[in-house]
């Protein structure tokens, strides 16, 4: 009872402190049924399960796959089977859409450009149509929503993350069973400004498919294996190390099918492995400390637990379909896709993992985006903001946002109304 009271007190305190939780949730819908939908969830209630339609009067499209915040005024959504990258404002109003990148998969951004991975083989750019044998990454300039550069990577590139001016792209080779190539095992490292491949790291595990979370210099990558002999596994990838040496990742024998980054820089992962040979599943529920894991060469840093009642609640779900931590508030979210033909459910937990509610959403809810309740939106996804650092007075980036995080050498900023190249 005492614990409950403490908890209630804490919950009230937290709710009082952070008045608003704003979550956008992408429902994939059914393939070729044109029923991808956007759910808007605010402060414990579903505002709408068809928010995009409500705001714009038309439908979102077929099988949306990823949603990110580009800057405080812009959100990008990759709508896979519609071949559309849709841009909306945080109020949900459509701003622009492009179909220059067919079969688009995942997104990342530096606030100025949006980088998109694609399974397709052609891309409409400002320099004409580009063709690729394998998959590619496209760079969209948000000043005109045109593709300004592309870069060919491996077959069927999936997850993409930006670290230190480089794009880290997980290749899957996901069409291996249908096309004349094998599963990919590599992570491609691309210089984001030149859009040239700098390096390819062979991870020796196939099919680096699905959600890829980033925590500073670390990436959490999933491999479902080949569903036959090669088992499913997970990877922690150190981007900083990867720039210098080959030995930059740790593989562990639990998949990280659905993963996310916590406020303290850890990863939460729900893994599910399946083999067509045995016809059996295996589930795992992990908390990963990437720094510890890399430093200990995989000896430490992996714990089979989730905060609070999360594990229990996920075990009771029909089909877990996503996990997410609100980077602004620490509230935890998860989805259950149910039977895949009926409506899925959104679960909400407090930051310490107490289940707060379960809300009916739409078919196959899988991709989250938390909106900031403050005026400032970080968007880039840097987790460890060091407020105590010695800041140079009021510097702004080219999008006019006040620069809060670590400045990057060689980048252009605005200070005292003038452009400067940061050189320290």
């Amino acid at each position, binding site marked *: 009872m005492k614990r409950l009271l403490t908890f209630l007190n804490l919950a009230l305190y937290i709710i009082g402190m952070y008045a608003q939780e704003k979550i956008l949730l992408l429902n994939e819908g059914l393939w070729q*049924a044109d029923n991808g939908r956007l759910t808007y969830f605010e402060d414990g209630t579903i505002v709408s399960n068809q928010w995009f339609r409500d705001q714009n009067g038309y439908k979102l*499209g077929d099988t949306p796959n990823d949603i990110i915040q580009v800057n405080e005024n812009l959100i990008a959504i990759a709508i896979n089977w*519609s071949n559309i990258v849709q841009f909306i404002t945080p109020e949900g109003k459509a701003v622009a859409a492009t179909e220059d990148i067919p079969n688009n998969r995942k997104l990342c951004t530096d606030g100025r450009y949006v980088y998109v991975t694609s399974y397709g083989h052609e891309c409409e750019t400002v320099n004409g149509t580009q063709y690729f044998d394998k998959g590619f990454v496209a760079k969209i300039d948000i000043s005109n929503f045109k593709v300004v550069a592309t870069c060919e990577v491996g077959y069927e590139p999936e997850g993409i993350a930006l670290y230190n001016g480089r794009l880290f792209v997980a290749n899957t080779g996901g069409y291996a069973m249908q096309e004349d190539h094998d599963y990919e095992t590599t992570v491609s490292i691309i210089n984001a400004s030149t859009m040239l491949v700098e390096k390819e790291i062979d991870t020796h595990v196939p099919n680096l498919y699905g959600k890829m979370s980033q925590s500073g210099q670390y990436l959490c990558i999933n491999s479902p294996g080949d569903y036959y002999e090669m088992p499913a596994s997970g990877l922690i990838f150190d981007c900083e190390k990867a720039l210098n040496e080959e030995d930059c990742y740790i593989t562990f024998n639990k998949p990280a099918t659905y993963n996310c980054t916590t406020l303290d820089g850890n990863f939460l992962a729900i893994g599910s*492995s399946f083999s067509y040979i045995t016809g059996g599943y295996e589930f795992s529920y992990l908390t990963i400390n990437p720094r510890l894991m890399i430093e200990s060469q995989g000896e430490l840093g992996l714990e089979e637990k989730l905060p609070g009642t999360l594990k229990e609640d996920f075990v009771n779900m029909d089909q877990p379909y996503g996990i997410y931590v609100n980077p602004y508030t620490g509230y935890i979210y998860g989805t259950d896709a*149910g039977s895949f033909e*009926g409506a899925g459910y959104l679960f909400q937990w407090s930051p310490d993992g107490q289940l707060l509610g379960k809300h009916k959403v739409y078919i196959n809810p899988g991709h989250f985006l938390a909106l900031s309740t403050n005026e400032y939106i970080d968007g880039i996804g840097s987790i460890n903001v060091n407020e105590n650092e010695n800041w140079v007075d009021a510097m702004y980036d080219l999008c006019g946002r006040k620069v809060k995080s670590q400045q990057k050498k060689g980048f252009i900023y605005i200070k005292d109304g003038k452009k400067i190249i940061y050189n320290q």
Partner: protein
Amino acid sequence: MPSRHTFRKIVAMFCEHNIRNYYLQAILATALAFVVKASASAQNPNNELDTIKQMHEVTVSVKLPTKTIATSQTLSGADLQALSTTSVADALKYFAGVQIKDYGGLGGLKTVNVRSLGAQHVGIYVDGIRITNAQNGTVDLGKFSLSCMESVALYNANKLDYCQSASEYASGATVYLQTRRPTHDSISVQLRNASFHTWMAKLNGQFNWRGWQGFIDGEYCSSRGDYPFRYHSEYEDTVGRRSNSDIRYGRIEGALFKGGFSSHVYYYDSERGCPGGIVRRLSDKYTNIGREWDRDFFVQASYQERFLKKLLFKANAKYTNESLRYCTNFPENQNTPRVDNHYWQQDVYSALCAAYMPWDWLSFSSSYDIRYSILEADLKRFDDVKRVDQKLVFAAQMNWKNIQAAVSALHQRYSDWTFAHVGAADPLDRWTPAVSLAYTFYGVTVRGWYKEIFRAPTLNDLYYTQVGNRNLKPEYTKQFNLGLEYHCQWPMFNGQCSMDVQADIYQNKIENRIVCLPLKGTYTWSMMNYGYTFCRGLNATLKGHYHTKTWNFSLLTSLTWQRDVDRTDPTDVDMYDKPICYSPAFSSGITGIVGWKTLQFTTSYLYVGERMWSKADPDDILAPYHNVDIKLSYTHNIKKVSLGLCLEVCDVLDIQYEHLPRYPMPGRNYKLTLSFGV
């Protein structure tokens, strides 16, 4: 790429596999019966003549179970030809309890679902021999033409003839296509032009010579299928033209009959585009470009003979060879997987049936069927699969005074062999029963039946790369039915009037539905046993005919009311006891035919109520639709030459409807056919 097996190899493989002992006994028993009968009939010098006469008896005037015991609907002869139909699917949509799934256009896959059992529970039979598809278990009805059919009949549960092959007992519902036996010599040519750049030419030659009857029917058709469509709702106003919806096909078939012997050869070759669902796109730049090539061949023969008035013997044999290619590996495909897959399947089938009638009100029958199928494909991680499917049935029927009864017990055994990675599924070995009872008084028949049957997982379900699941259990159906049937006819004015009324209430349970589901968190799909469906419904039909020397009136109506609910998981409040997708609560059809001499006018009206296409949102419904077709035909005879002209208008109201979400149907379209016959 696997090499293609020859017929010889199939036979060799066939011999390698062990057949269960009692099956051998069954064959021996049947064979023995045949020898006894043969020796008995040898004593009768007029044997052959008798046989022919008796064959007529078999089909026309036998006292044993009349059709009223089975729930059936038939469209035959003039009624069938009067409907505006291009394929078997078009005819079936007028039956009560039938739901058609149609992806739209001439080339769109058309399958039929009876009383919500699912397409794979519906057996399609040509002259009593089942059309099979070992690969996926569904038959595309668009491949079969009505021009050589005498009748199309739908039987819920069993047909209940008294000498049936075991396969005929083995499906939840059966559709019989009866080939027409020519009564005279003729040659006819048909030319058709229809909407959406469709051209068709057909040639038919038939003969009837010294008891031999036969025909050859050939058809070639080409259609661009670029029909316009419109989606108009609160959230969209999409206007477009279907692309990649073209089809070209050639079909040639022939049949030969003599007395109890019938045979059929069929060849079909097609190339078609596979259009996808209409989804949000910013332009027409990316459309589906997948293409499919089909080549189907079968040859079948059946022979039946009666001995000593008490024994009836039938043998069926069939060989099928089908190939399918699906390709998206074209230069213009820059956005979807580049696939080029080939599938080949061969199937050898034979059946022996024997019936014994100790008295004219009682019969016992047994049949043993064996089918050997091979599926080959150039998929990765796939190896040839061979399946031996054996069926044995014991059945008894009686028709004593006003009481009719039929019972049957069917045993099925499926054994698969494969070197595919996952290994072969365990053999499947089950008995299933069926019971029918009927009582007739004052021309009214009251009937009740129960049937339990399963469908075995198809080879795709079990072994398809990355989707197949070798641990699947069979999908069971249990059907209860109670019905009434009344038939009467009386003379009126200068003509004859007849009426048929039928009403059946039914209850179906389907367990262990075989469905394709995404795997928990592994981003791939797999076949699973998931779901339990409970269905209650009412089917009613009313048929009226009136004809005089020059006038001919027909009215055909059907009505279906049903409630299909999901009973899978009682704890799932969103799904449990909620209607299942694609199943309308109410549908009905009315067809009126007016004929005057050789001028004929037909109007058909079909109503299909609203149905859910997903359970996630009450807004996810397919709108109810009304469909009106009209057909006007006139034939002019000059001596022995006949000239015909026929105009059909389908979907007169131009209602844009869908069978599947985002797969629009063509809307109003026209067909003009010229025919010439000698």
